[in-house]
């Protein structure tokens, strides 16, 4: 597939301003790719924690570990796709899925618990996919 680079050639500018040559169409996917990588890092942590839990008790088996690692792989691959300006419809589907999952957790927290304890990280879990979806909502430049 032929792709047109939208990144300008580097030139002699002050260090802090050199990046300002980034084309506007490049900025949104680059930030989205960074957020996808951030999500992947969070789920690496989750996979490590699930592995530790499985080693201690074995109640839930290794299923959560394997599934978490698969999600990490999918998120890192998505970040690469977005960075390379390849079609990102599937990335948005993945983010909508994560958003739905976070929304279910939020609903459980609201309905089962009378306090808002534990909600701040859950709100972060909602904010990240929403931001990615918004960033990738503009027409794709290829």
């Amino acid at each position, binding site marked *: 597939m032929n792709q047109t680079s939208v990144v300008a050639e580097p030139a002699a500018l002050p260090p802090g301003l050199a990046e300002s040559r980034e084309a506007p169409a490049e900025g949104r996917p680059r930030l989205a790719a960074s957020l996808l990588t951030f999500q992947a*890092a969070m789920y690496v942590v989750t996979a490590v924690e699930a592995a530790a839990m499985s080693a201690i008790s074995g109640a839930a088996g290794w299923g959560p570990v394997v599934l978490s690692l698969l999600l990490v792989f999918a998120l890192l691959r998505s970040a690469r796709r977005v960075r390379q300006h390849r079609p990102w419809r599937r990335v948005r589907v993945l983010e909508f899925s994560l958003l739905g999952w976070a929304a279910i957790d939020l609903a459980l927290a609201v309905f089962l618990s009378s*306090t808002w304890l534990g909600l701040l990280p859950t709100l972060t879990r909602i904010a990240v996919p929403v931001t990615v979806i918004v960033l990738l909502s503009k027409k794709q430049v290829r």
Partner: protein
Amino acid sequence: MGAAILFHGRMPMQGATGEVGSQLYDLMPEHLPALWAIGLAVVGGIWLTRRGRGPRMEAFRQLPLRVRAVIALLLVSGAAHAGLAWGSTGGWRALFAVSAAMAAIIALRIVDGKTWRRWAGLLLAGSLVGYWIEVIGGHPADQIGITVKALEAFALYLVLSPSPDQAASRRFRQAAATTGLVVISILNATAVWAGAFGSASGDTNPLDHHNHGTITPGMVVNAGEMSEISVAQQAEADQLWTATAAFTDRYRDVSVAAADGYQVANVAGSDFHASNPVYQNDGLMLDPTKPENLIYAMGPDGPVLLGVMFETEGLRNEPLTTGGAALDWHRHEQVCFALTPPGLAGLVDPFGNCPVGSLAIPTTNSMMHVWTLQGAPTKFGDLDEAWKQEYLDNLES
């Protein structure tokens, strides 16, 4: 079926509802100014972005989106530290104030086109490392701190990521930045867990005068349980223990337990809770002949019965007052329940995540352990892990 993998420690926090739990899932009162400062920074930032005028605002708008994101995250971090400075005293106040000022200065350097990556990296890395030292040192992490540190980790990743003018080493730098983010996130979580469990295992809680009643992340007890135990309550508790131990002795044979409806098919680990679905919904509470769960550890010759766990039915039912504080009723919060296969997958992690395929359950029903094993150092509450392990090791030898 499920296995209790929720350890209990100390250092509780008094919640608004009269319940006592860990700060990990809560907001510490002294951190609230930081939350307000973050809110103000976000609202002020949005207003400035839309309405702000002047050469600096024009320069800001020309910056790449990721660089603008770094500025926003630096200002959030700075606002949090400014709020902490407001609520602190002495050296901490000065440290937080300096950190907040440095964040603002670096944000201005970015807008002014001066070198900034090294300074931003140093500030963010210093803030993260300082936090890790603080929480491991015994200052419990709360939701505000954890969220700000997650945002700082992301900001550091953006700082370390290559910019378009670094095309030559771009791939290497990108891989290094991604690896760095993963490592920092793992360190972040490790420090928070270590701090939360470490501070909970100390013997410093003036409220908790039980030898065995302990509170750590994921566990909540009613503040009323911290009261003194009367002679009559102790007698009730002893009576319950005697009746329970006498009746459940038959369940040392798992085939008997299975015949009575306990789910003992996959006993594993050292703290396996075999539930009985019929007894969990029979409307009875604290019946020594019908405990809702049996607790086993896998020994060298098969499952070893450690004790039982009584439960209340449903989330809203209060436990009986029999035995008072001696019985150590508690419930759990923020647990992950896996669907693949069904079982307890751990606690909601510091970033609000559960393993994939599991749901975050904010609260459970009330439960209480009775340890019927001969020679156990305690009858109720938590069974000492070291003792249990030594007991199991002795069985092997």
